[in-house]
């Protein structure tokens, strides 16, 4: 290939995906996940990790089939990220030091309740209401606890990953709420385009389903309360959708300049063609009613990719199954794609895996690439009562064999976070 073939429409290095790994409630690894996802199987189930008596939401897409050295979100999030990164690097054919930067989307983690209770057990008695933390400090002054400290640091997951994989420089641990996974990928794309590196490791992980996390989202009325049967709770774009289903998982994508991938004879799985973002200033949890920022985000991703609206063959929707998101996402897609939207299949992976929060953008990017690689569109399951105001081809309930060359994947989150990715099969 000529040098020009490695540059995009703006003269920047083209970014290839050469390795992918994924873990969700559907299983471990891309093959198992894809079989379940394209088979329309749900990973949502009743929660057994902690008691749910008295809670209005008692279901989740937790990953329950792993053995952890300790039960907390840091260990979980690290474990998932390690699994998917091992898988992605193996697929990419990379071993030894990775020698590129690490961008990690990880959940904001707080001390575990079990740790607070354990400190309280050792603490002197309460002298006055509200003095728990003074008592905790008294305990730790006597006997420091480095493991506890490490579990409270936001940088501890990326630290372990950086050591394990020999990434270069300071790893970035980021949060853009439910867009985090997409933002991690975007940072990797930017670093390669800057010419700072030939490759980047981008990871989204979330193992933070705890009682408190569930209750917090519940208090914001964000979660589905249709607990029975669990598999039917996540029903994006339907009339009776009533909230998202909280879930866990991780995905890793190895990004590489196309030139470097070709030079080392790596298999190119897909092209990370463009990224777009635009923040919303309307409200902390709600999107601008006119969809303005989401529209701008999608348009920015298309422009960055150098692809017209007609070029998109499939949309991997954010599709959370909340009344608000699905309506706003439809508004923004219909504004951008107009009449053409009726010809674009749009499906929601979340109908099966739930909302994996921090990891969602990365997991859905992996599934987007896999959609192009296999020529199979995963369905939106539980689509039995369509919302008449949302007119979409959601690939209802059953997968569809259809070759697509370019995919748009959307991620929108609390705090006005919006990010979209455009991926293609071929470089040009």
């Amino acid at each position, binding site marked *: 290939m000529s040098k020009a073939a490695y540059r995009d429409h703006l003269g920047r290095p083209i970014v290839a995906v050469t390795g992918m790994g994924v873990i969700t409630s559907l299983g471990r690894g891309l093959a198992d996940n894809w079989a379940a996802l394209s088979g329309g199987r749900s990973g949502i189930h009743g929660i057994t990790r902690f008691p749910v008596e008295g809670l209005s939401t008692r279901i989740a897409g937790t990953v329950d089939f792993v053995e952890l050295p300790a039960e907390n979100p840091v260990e979980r999030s690290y474990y998932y990220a390690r699994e998917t990164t091992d898988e992605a690097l193996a697929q990419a054919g990379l071993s030894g030091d990775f020698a590129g930067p690490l961008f990690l989307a990880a959940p904001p983690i707080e001390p575990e309740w079990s740790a607070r209770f354990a400190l309280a057990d050792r603490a002197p008695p309460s002298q006055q209401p509200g003095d728990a933390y003074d008592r905790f400090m008294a305990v730790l002054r006597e006997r420091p606890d480095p493991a506890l400290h490490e579990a409270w640091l936001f940088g501890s997951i990326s630290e372990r990953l950086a050591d394990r994989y020999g990434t270069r420089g300071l790893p970035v641990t980021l949060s853009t709420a439910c867009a985090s996974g997409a933002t991690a990928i975007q940072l990797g794309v930017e670093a390669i385009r800057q010419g700072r590196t030939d490759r980047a490791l981008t990871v989204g992980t979330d193992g933070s389903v705890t009682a408190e996390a569930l209750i917090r989202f519940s208090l914001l009325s964000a979660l589905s309360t249709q607990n029975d049967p669990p598999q039917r709770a996540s029903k994006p774009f339907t009339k009776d959708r009533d909230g998202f289903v909280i879930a866990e998982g991780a995905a890793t994508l190895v990004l590489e300049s196309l030139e470097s991938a070709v030079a080392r004879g790596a298999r190119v799985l897909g092209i990370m063609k463009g990224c777009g973002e635009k923040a919303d*200033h309307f409200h902390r949890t709600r999107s601008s009613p006119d969809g303005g920022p989401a529209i701008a985000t999608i348009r920015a991703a298309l422009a960055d990719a150098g692809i017209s609206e007609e070029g998109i063959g499939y949309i991997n929707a954010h599709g959370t199954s909340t009344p608000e998101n699905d309506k706003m996402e439809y508004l923004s897609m219909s504004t951008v794609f107009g009449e053409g939207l009726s010809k674009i299949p749009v499906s929601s992976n979340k109908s099966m895996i739930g909302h994996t929060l921090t990891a969602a953008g990365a997991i859905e990017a992996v599934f987007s690439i896999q959609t192009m690689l296999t020529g199979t569109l995963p369905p939106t399951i539980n689509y039995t009562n369509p919302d008449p105001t949302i007119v979409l081809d959601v690939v209802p309930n059953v997968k569809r064999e259809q070759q697509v060359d370019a995919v748009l994947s959307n991620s929108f989150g*609390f705090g006005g976070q919006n990010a979209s990715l455009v991926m293609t099969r071929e470089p040009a």
Partner: protein
Amino acid sequence: MSKSQNDVVITGIGIVTCQGVGTEPHIALLSAERAPEARIETEKFKPYPIHPMPEIDWSTQIPKRGDQRQMENWQRLGVFTAGLALDDAGLKEDLEACGTMDMIVSCGGGERDINVDSLIVEEGLKRNDREQLLNEKLTTELRPTLFLAQLSNLMAGNISIVHKVTGSSRTFMGEEAAGISAVETAFARIRAGQSTHTLVGGAFVADRRDVILLYEAVRYHATGEWTPIWSRDPEEGGGIVTGSAGAFLVLESREHAEARGARIYATIEEIGGDRGRRDEGRLEGRLDALVDGALRQTDATVIFSGASGGHEITAREKTWLDNRFSDVPVRGYGSVTGHALESQFPLGLALAALTLSSGAKVPAFEPGKEKPMSGPADTAVVTTVGHVRGEGVAVLKAEK
């Protein structure tokens, strides 16, 4: 260094420390004859001394009471300081500029509701079904909005809401390294033409028991009487005195800044960060490599060290500075501001930029341990060595 259109220049500074609000009191302390009087709160969190938040009239940057109520102090301080930076850059209320402005925030998580947490652990001591208790208490006692006041990315979210900064919004977490990566990423994007103007920085609140607890888990917080950063007593706790601080910078490409006639405080010439094991001289080796990469043509004339005060690591940084920069005055700004974790590195850049632009001869923050400056500085080096991990170095040049 010759000027170039894609130079990354600092055109706005928002700064809040225990020493005051905004650039004015900070330029004053940097230009004073002697180090400012230490502002320390010793009673409230006894035995832990901290540098408290100064008095702040939130409404000057967060006019709506409703917005103020949606946040706790940590987010308020970030939103407030970001507003100061925008004001300082002349971009506040400029909807076009803010609507295309990128943003990278470095911060931790939100504060706990200490009363609710206390109530639950107290009740937990009396019961065996603690998980059931949690469900009951959290469901009834947690304020729904508290979650949003705790979410890391909601500092940026609130900056979007209050100041309309909406070009993009990214939040970096992970202690001191988050602050280094935030500025490094903003710098690299502007250099490469991926951004024309970026708001970058963070805020940290030390006046919080849950924050002090983090350090005390490994006994890193200083106890007892306050002493300056290079002279902390190993018998009095771990050496770190936390400090509430907010620091935001408006960074622009020179082209963007000059086109709008912006005042330029300083140019960021280079910036880098790294991490890894610290034993057997590895830390010093990485700091050397970062400085080698950053200091190309000129010599440093002042160094702003973000040393945390943690005994061992601060002693090692001091020895390295003394060896590597034996003739260059060092200012350990933790003596004045305390340690601000995710905000420590942006804070150092803010102080360095103010020093370069004002021509200040910065007084020794710890006389006897820090050399006097002979004249205004031309090149400033900023270091931050994380209390557990992560190191960063930036080199700033005065605008001429």
